[in-house]
């Protein structure tokens, strides 16, 4: 079984790495935001710069999880290659695990540029342990967004998934305080901010890397979102299975 997961992950990674534009798209926007906004505006403030780095790394990771995963899953369903794979002696699991692992790998690559900008051009600072914990938190934090990506990907066509995932992504990123810190968010945005799942993850990242105290409401709502997304993803997966393979 593990050999099959490796085989599937390897081939999905090759597929993504040979079309590097997808990789760049996830990495470029947060890196540019770092250079354009964080470096000039908050680069000298260690805590603000550290928090912004965490936020933008998560922004890149989340785009891979939500936008990337939803599009690739939706595209898979439209390719005749996908039912062919189902005739091979393996259940759907190795393919699924491979898809998740490949998405995680691409995600980790796409956060590197932000980290490099932070190290070389800002006063952002943290300890190696906190950085490591932050990366672990990043990988756990994308789980609800991967589940949303799966939900959209199993439910919609690839064309619709491209549009819908972006429509969901940007408001969540902005309201959650990933692009602008909560301190400068308008009051009404700050009022709803704890109720979007991005804010919960950001709170954890800030707490780990910059030592802030996390907002409890945001953490609870993150848990609720995670459960709801998981239920949605399972439902959409079963619906798709029933339509194509029953």
């Amino acid at each position, binding site marked *: 079984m593990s050999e099959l997961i490796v085989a599937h992950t390897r*081939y999905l990674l090759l*597929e993504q790495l040979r079309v590097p534009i997808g990789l760049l798209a996830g990495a470029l926007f947060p890196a540019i935001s770092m250079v354009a906004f964080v470096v000039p505006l908050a680069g000298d403030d260690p805590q603000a710069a550290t928090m912004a780095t965490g936020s933008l790394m998560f922004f890149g990771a989340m785009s891979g999880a939500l936008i990337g995963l939803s599009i690739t899953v939706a595209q898979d369903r439209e390719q005749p290659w996908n039912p062919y794979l189902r005739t*091979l002696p393996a259940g759907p699991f190795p393919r699924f695990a491979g898809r998740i692992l490949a998405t995680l790998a691409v995600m980790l690559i796409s956060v590197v540029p932000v980290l490099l900008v932070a190290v070389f051009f800002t006063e952002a600072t943290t300890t190696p342990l906190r950085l490591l914990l932050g990366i672990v938190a990043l990988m756990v934090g994308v789980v609800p967004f991967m589940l949303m990506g799966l939900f959209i990907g199993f439910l919609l066509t690839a064309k619709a998934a491209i549009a819908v995932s972006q429509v969901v992504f940007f408001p969540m990123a902005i309201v959650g305080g990933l692009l602008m810190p909560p301190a400068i968010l308008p009051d009404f945005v700050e009022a709803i901010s704890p109720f979007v799942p991005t804010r919960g993850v950001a709170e954890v990242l800030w707490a780990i890397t910059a030592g802030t105290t996390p907002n409890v409401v945001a953490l609870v709502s993150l848990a609720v979102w995670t459960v709801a997304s998981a239920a949605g993803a399972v439902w959409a997966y079963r619906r798709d299975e029933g339509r194509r393979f029953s």
Partner: protein
Amino acid sequence: MTILARTIEASRRYGDVLALDRVSLDIRAGELVGLLGPNGAGKSTLINLFVGLRRPTSGTVELLGGSPLDAAVRRGIGVTPQETGLPETLRVGEIVDFVSAHFPDREPKGELLARFGLDDLVKRQIGGLSGGQRRRLAVALAFAGKPRLVFLDEPTTGLDVEARRSLWEGIRSFHQDGGTVLLTSHYLEEIEALAERVVVVGSGRVLADDTVRAVRGIVGVRHVSLVADDLPELPGVLGTERAEGRISLMTTDPDQLVVELVRSGVPFSGLEIRPTTLEEAFLALTSKESAHV
């Protein structure tokens, strides 16, 4: 002989459409079975049931003594679907490795590719292959895991004559080594070149299941056409059509008909004998079937 795959009274419904209607079929070890039928006859649905992509609405499907839904059972089969959509960015060698990784017993990559004339393309990306090369690769993949039974859904569609023949060679050599094949085709020629047994399906039912020769006999109505003023009663004529000054006679025995025609002494010219097309044969079989009902 061992039965490798069978359906028992298997039906499959898609919404209101009955794609397969109580089909019972045995595929025995060592057979090369051709599945013949027009588009929408249920050929692909039948294959999808055998390879575990779909479940029957009613009835049973057995594969290698188990259920096709069991992944372990599918280690013994190889499949080439009608469309494969091979991933464009991967290289030929990578895709073979990837598919092989699913099987405990693997065909060496070089030999597999050589058998289908692809050995010099190992490093080539799929996106750079011609349609014919892709099709041959898709067929080669069915043999990657040393299967006992392969399902080939229109393996040679879109291939030129030469590529088709080299693919036939690959399929034949597998069969000569004891492999079992179920293949679908639009072309009677292809079925005749490869298969020993033909199953004709139409409207989701098995219309004929016999040797190639016998099915050829059922569907082998010929058109004998000629120019003549008037014809006497001739034996074995199934039907007569007149168009643009020509008379077209349908018969199962054109030789006998021509002999009788010459004996009758009636003057004629422009004699032509033409086999019925597969479409005409299907129509003949399908209309016979509905006549019974």
